[in-house]
């Protein structure tokens, strides 16, 4: 048995990181003990038919000893709206750990994350310690400053871009990426964020022959490889399921 759980979980705490972003800590001992960086959990937020489906979330930290895991999420709709109203002691059903996580390798890893794509990279950064970890993070504006604080504890070097230039360099992560690669030696790249960013990161990594893993996201119902909502085309012409074949893939497997 591969050790997946559908366990009743309790909210331990919830804090605001910005107007729209929250960090939720859940007591889910089975999942917390088994989960590796890059894997995800699928939460049934309310014990009702509204909303009906589970919601997939990256995990930013797991503490097997305490039996807890942390999720950082943006309030975007009905499900996350309900989540934001939860307080300590409230219950959710936690399905996980799901999918395949990152392969920790390399001595000088670079993490490239855009927006909420930084979430799975945070747990990975912790797992890569004590290797010197560099993170290149991109966001809309200075309101995503909280990510800098979160990564400061686990990364040696932090580079920031924002769409409006209100923090770090103005532009996209992939604008700054060639410069970083020219100035430093990295032997592994991990990336998560919007699809166009991932495609650009994968292209640049391939040019420089640096191994690269990307974490994809998609709408999904089951999270178990059955509903086929989240499949994508592999570069070999075969379909891949983001939920069970991924969400972490070697870049060349899914991005041309």
């Amino acid at each position, binding site marked *: *048995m591969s050790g997946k759980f*559908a366990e009743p979980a309790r909210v331990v705490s919830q804090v605001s990181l910005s107007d729209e972003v929250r960090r939720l800590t859940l007591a889910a001992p089975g999942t917390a003990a088994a989960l590796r960086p890059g894997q995800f959990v699928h939460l049934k937020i309310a014990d009702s038919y*509204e909303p009906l489906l589970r919601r997939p979330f990256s995990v930013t930290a797991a503490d097997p000893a305490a039996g807890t895991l942390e999720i950082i999420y943006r309030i975007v709709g009905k499900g996350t709206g309900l989540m934001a109203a939860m307080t300590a002691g409230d219950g959710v059903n936690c399905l996980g750990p799901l999918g395949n996580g990152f392969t920790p390798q390399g001595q000088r890893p670079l993490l490239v994350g855009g927006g909420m794509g930084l979430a799975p990279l945070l747990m990975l950064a912790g797992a890569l310690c004590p290797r010197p970890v560099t993170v290149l993070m991109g966001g809309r504006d200075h309101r995503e400053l909280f990510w800098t604080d979160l990564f400061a504890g686990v990364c040696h070097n932090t580079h920031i871009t924002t769409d409006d230039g209100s923090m770090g360099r103005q532009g996209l992560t992939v604008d700054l990426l060639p410069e970083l690669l020219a100035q430093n030696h990295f032997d592994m790249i991990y990336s998560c964020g919007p699809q166009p960013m991932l495609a650009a990161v994968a292209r640049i990594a391939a040019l420089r022959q640096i191994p690269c893993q990307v974490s994809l996201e998609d709408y999904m*119902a*089951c999270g*178990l490889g*059955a509903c086929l909502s*989240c499949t994508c085309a592999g570069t070999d012409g075969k379909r891949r399921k983001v939920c069970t074949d991924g969400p972490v893939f070697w870049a060349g497997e899914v991005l041309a």
Partner: protein
Amino acid sequence: MQCRWEAKKSLAVNIAGIAMKTPVMVASGTFGFGLEFEDFVDLSQVGAVVVKGTTLLPRAGNSGRRIAETPAGMLNCIGLENPGVEEFLTAILPELSRRDVPVIVNISGNTVEEYGELAACLEGSGVAGLEVNISCPNVKQGGIAFGTCPDSAAAVVRMVKANSTLPVIAKLSPNVTDIVLMAKAVEGAGADAISLINTLLGMAIDIHSWKPVLGNTVGGLSGPAVKPVALRMVWQVARAVAVPVIGMGGIMTGEDAVEFLLAGAAAVSVGTANFIDPTAPVSVAAGIQTYLEQRRLNHVNDIVGQLILA
């Protein structure tokens, strides 16, 4: 963690010659090939596994967004993504056959002849039965095109029967004016059982982009939202045909299943529920068992079709 539960004899049913430990099957397309759920469910305690809609050749399915949540339901437009019958027979069935559960293959063709070819391919493979998909709303050819006209539905069923010795279940679409007409047509063509309902054709629109939410513009609605429609159609069909009816549409609990059984379904399938609760096929069966015990009933067949009309 796998859910430990064992069905009592009071749940055992036989549908068109297929012996099942419980009357709770899984709906095609909602349970993969069954193996995906083994972390949560002992497949030997599932009535039957109806596998994902299978076609002669592999299909990539539809592009763009494939699901959308709706009030108490969901829309999907997967588009019959599947590895094709050959891959099913060589790579999947050998493993699935080791489980003590009847395997029913849902088959879908672009033409009447393709249904016959699929049936012939599956002859002697060890599967327990065929479910003829004449009701998929998400493919351009075949699918629902066969299931909305009594003559073509009958032609497909006749073709499958002519190429198979297995029990043949016809899966009906609710997207018709007269469901009883369709049921009688497939029964007349030799269907050994009838399953219904497939999804209801629906749509969702993004008011910010002014575009359809789904990549295929329209999709099939499922989940608790469709249950009253499904129940009504199962009731209408069950009283009009002699073959067993497998009822499905929004079943989430044992109580939901009991409604379908009272309406005349000899067995039920859980579909969308599997996406929310991976133990659903077992928890629904356990719910039926509890209901029977509470009512001091000996067997699930004691309630099938026992609806009391005022």
